């Protein structure tokens, strides 16, 4: 194809997206669109998969059967969400093995929030309430993104995710209304998860290298700073309602903006964690790669069994 023909196709392509048409797997698309989508969708899928680890840590120690079945169901959902997203990603011609390889080798990133440890039961509350809360804010606009398989996966994810946030907040309510020690656990979890949750919504607009192109392709519908503000405005009253204090002395209602002003985010910490120096980066990858490697014989056995059954069927047919 000549350069001019490609240019022409690109113009038509951008016009389709501007008209809110969806792009489907076999449609022509610019190479950059394909690459950007593989990067974002796989990063999203990896986050769901690695996101199972901090919570999986507490399943066996959940304080009641009610909490245990809920946490188990939530972690199971995350596995499901990872699968929806990997499948959507594979429609762009990348294989599951390549995607796993990118995660395991450290080439692909996942959400930096999962590199923080879950040290008390209250962290299960804070993760559901704050981390899933921030994730929902990020994800709802993606239900309308331009790439069909991604948009459809996001619709399913968003439908399922609202229980995640509720179960987390319910844990926080219970603890906040419990004994002084329990309330302290809840406050401590909020203190530790608040700032990482704000960082989770991504670097400030000025620092965000992908924003402009992603906005055009509707891979992003609101800027990181807008999403962050939305998250803060929605979460502060929820904290107040259960008598917990947001760990930010600069947090103040701004009457004029009808929004909260908030303090400086420690972006050095964010970049440190992104670069692999967070408290749990190494453990997370070790657990993930270990699970993959230790499961290899199971995958091979299943394949060998499937082939044996197939051969038997063919023999009987003769």
């Amino acid at each position, binding site marked *: 194809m000549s350069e001019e023909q490609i240019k022409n196709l690109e113009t038509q392509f951008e016009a389709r997206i501007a008209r809110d048409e969806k792009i489907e797997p076999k449609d*022509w698309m610019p190479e950059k669109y394909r690459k950007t989508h593989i990067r974002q969708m796989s990063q999203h899928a990896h986050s769901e998969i690695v996101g199972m680890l901090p919570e999986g840590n507490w399943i066996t120690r959940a304080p009641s059967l009610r909490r245990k079945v809920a946490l188990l*169901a939530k972690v199971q959902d995350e596995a499901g969400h990872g699968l929806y997203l990997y499948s959507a990603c594979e429609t762009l011609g990348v294989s599951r093995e390549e995607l796993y390889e990118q995660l395991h080798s450290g080439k692909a990133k996942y959400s930096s929030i999962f590199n923080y440890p879950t040290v008390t039961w209250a962290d299960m509350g804070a993760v559901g309430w704050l981390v899933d809360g921030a994730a929902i804010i990020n994800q709802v606009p993606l239900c309308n993104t331009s790439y069909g398989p991604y948009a459809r996966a996001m619709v399913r994810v968003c439908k399922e995710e609202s229980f995640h946030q509720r179960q987390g907040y319910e844990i926080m309510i219970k603890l906040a209304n419990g004994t002084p020690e329990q309330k302290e656990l809840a406050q401590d979890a909020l203190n530790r998860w608040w700032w990482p949750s704000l960082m989770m919504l991504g670097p400030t607009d000025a620092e965000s290298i992908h924003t402009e192109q992603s906005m055009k392709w509707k891979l992003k519908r609101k800027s990181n700073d807008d999403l962050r503000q939305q998250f803060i405005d929605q979460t502060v009253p929820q904290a107040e309602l259960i008598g917990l204090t947001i760990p930010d002395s600069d947090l103040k209602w701004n009457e004029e903006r009808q929004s909260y002003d908030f303090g400086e985010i420690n972006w050095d910490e964010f970049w440190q964690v992104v670069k692999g120096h967070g408290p749990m980066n190494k453990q997370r990858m070790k657990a993930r790669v270990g699970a993959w490697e230790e499961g290899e014989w199971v995958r091979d056995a299943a394949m060998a069994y*499937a082939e044996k059954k197939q051969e038997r069927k063919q023999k009987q047919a003769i």
Partner: protein
Amino acid sequence: MSDKKNWPLWEVFVRSKNGLEHRHCGSLHAADEDMALENARDVYTRRSEGVSIWVVESKNITASNPENNGEMFEPAHDKVYRHPTFYDLPDEVKHM
């Protein structure tokens, strides 16, 4: 990586309730059709979204190519006489 083959890809179709058609809802990897059905149940019907599941190995699906959408679908565009609104009726005929 082992020299064994990777699990193939399957497309999943779910009938949400009797009376409705099966609809494509996504894909997954599984060693064989039995495992594909079980995985489909776990991945796509965790909240009672289905009463029936079809799985088809993806390589068995033949798809039209959007690049040929012109010759494929355009012949239908100028056949307005296939639609009821093409036909003029007197106003007195209320329903037909």
